[in-house]
């Protein structure tokens, strides 16, 4: 135990790179999570609304959107991350660094989160929507006050799972030049064979995942009055 403490406090990579790498991971995961929320939530609602038993059924639009979402979800993430490099360059100006990583991270998880939102909203009892209709609600009111609000605990749980997936993917994009804890673990820990750096990075990632899960569960519980 004493040896481990000395190793941790004297390892120069950990001293110099770990704090910076942690911040980079938090930044790329945080910004990606925001993008996923802003795009994925409406996309999930749209998927649900276009279904045959949705608020605004449209068979063609539903099929096209479903196909796009399924295709993006079917691609292994690392393939997607490499394939979108030109898009990343066009948007961010570079394909390196944590800012650039936001593009593949968002693209990879938006369809996932949208499907989770769709499922959560589908579980809202149809009677609630019917009651809202009978009371003269407009479609936006039904979407916001009934579907999203009633499904919110499940949407929060879905978002928690999505953020955790983002943390995992962020380590993968680290391997293709995004920086962060994944980059640290692979370059210093694996390629330069420094097990202390490797396992310390892993421990920090585990801590991040645990904190996200605990916070997500607590928020979902607070919102759930069933």
């Amino acid at each position, binding site marked *: 135990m004493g040896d481990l403490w000395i190793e941790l406090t004297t390892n120069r990579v950990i001293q110099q790179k770990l704090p910076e790498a942690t911040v980079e991971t938090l930044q790329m995961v945080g910004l990606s999570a925001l993008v996923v929320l802003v795009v994925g939530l409406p996309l999930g609602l749209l998927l649900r609304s276009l279904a045959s038993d949705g608020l605004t059924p449209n068979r063609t639009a539903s099929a096209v959107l479903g196909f796009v979402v399924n295709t993006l979800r079917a691609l292994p993430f690392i393939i997607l991350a490499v394939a979108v490099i030109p898009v990343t360059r066009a948007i961010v100006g570079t394909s390196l660094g944590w800012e650039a990583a936001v593009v593949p991270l968002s693209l990879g998880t938006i369809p996932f989160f949208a499907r989770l939102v769709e499922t959560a909203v589908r579980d809202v009892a149809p009677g609630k929507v019917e009651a809202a209709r009978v009371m*003269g609600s407009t479609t936006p009111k039904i979407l916001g*006050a*009934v579907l999203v609000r009633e499904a919110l605990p499940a949407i929060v749980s879905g978002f928690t799972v999505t953020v955790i997936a983002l943390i995992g993917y962020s380590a993968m994009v680290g391997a293709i030049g995004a920086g962060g804890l994944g980059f640290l673990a692979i370059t210093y820990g694996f390629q330069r064979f420094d097990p202390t750096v490797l396992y310390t990075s892993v421990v920090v990632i585990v801590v991040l995942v645990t904190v996200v899960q605990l916070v997500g569960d607590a928020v979902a519980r607070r*919102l759930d009055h069933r």
Partner: protein
Amino acid sequence: MIELTGLRKVYASPDGDVVALDGIDLHVERGTVHGIVGRSGAGKSTLIRCLTGLERPTSGTVRVDGVTISDLAESKLRAARRRTGMVFQHVNLLDSRTIAANVAYPLEVAGVRRHERADRVAELLDLVGLGDRAGAYPAQLSGGQKQRVGIARALATEPGVLLCDEPTSALDGETTRQILGLVRDLRDRLGITVVVITHEPAVVRDVCDHVTLLEHGRVVQTGALAQVVTAVGSPLSRALVPVPDLPPGDRRALVEAVFSTDAVPTSLAFAAVAALGDDVEVASATVEPLGGVRVGRLIVDAPTGRVPEVVERLRAAGLDPLAVPTTTDAGQEVA
């Protein structure tokens, strides 16, 4: 208040058209409680969906409070719906909202200001006897309390019409009586017109002034409760004043008789049967309190040859008799 004229609703299905409503003409007077009964599939739900404008009739018109619902465009229909309250079998409260916020929902939709909403919600919760539970969530309430919230919510926008779709079918007997008592009380105090869809005879007996029986999308019988139940041999009298099943065994011939205690006291009705002699007996009978009087139904078992005489003498005693073929299920419920 509610006027249905030639209402037809046909659904297209892969196996051909399904006629849910087949030319319904119905008039519901202001301030009455009107029951609509019938087996499942008779068209009750479609009828109530047409009244809310959730379903557009294939032909015919629906007029509620002078507004022809069946002609309105969607945006106008939303406004019209706020003038109709609806109570559902499964209540359909929003679990994420407190009961006060649930009752406030239709007021939000109608654009009522926040502080006016709060006053109105408190008033409505008092009206249904839940003034002290404003901050509770639906999950913390019993089934009967939830339905009270459902009723408060339906009344929030001061509608002229309250539509109730099987409001007590998920509740136990005592709670059912309380909810029906509340509905009757609200009708008396607010002068509201109530339409109740139900398959429970007890609901009609307890709360309705008028009743309509639907079968295969058509009106089979309609009228004031006291009239329909004393119409001997009618499906509604059989449904609403059911007699116990006849004991198994050989029957001779059956005569069914209906009477109302305001015309014939129960003792005289039975005395009339007793006077027919030892070979005529009451096979089954019931007396139900209905709208201030009691309505009796008797099934009399007599030798086949004496049926015309039995009918004659029961009629002379003021009962309304009808010879029934022995093969019918005279003792069974119809609706």
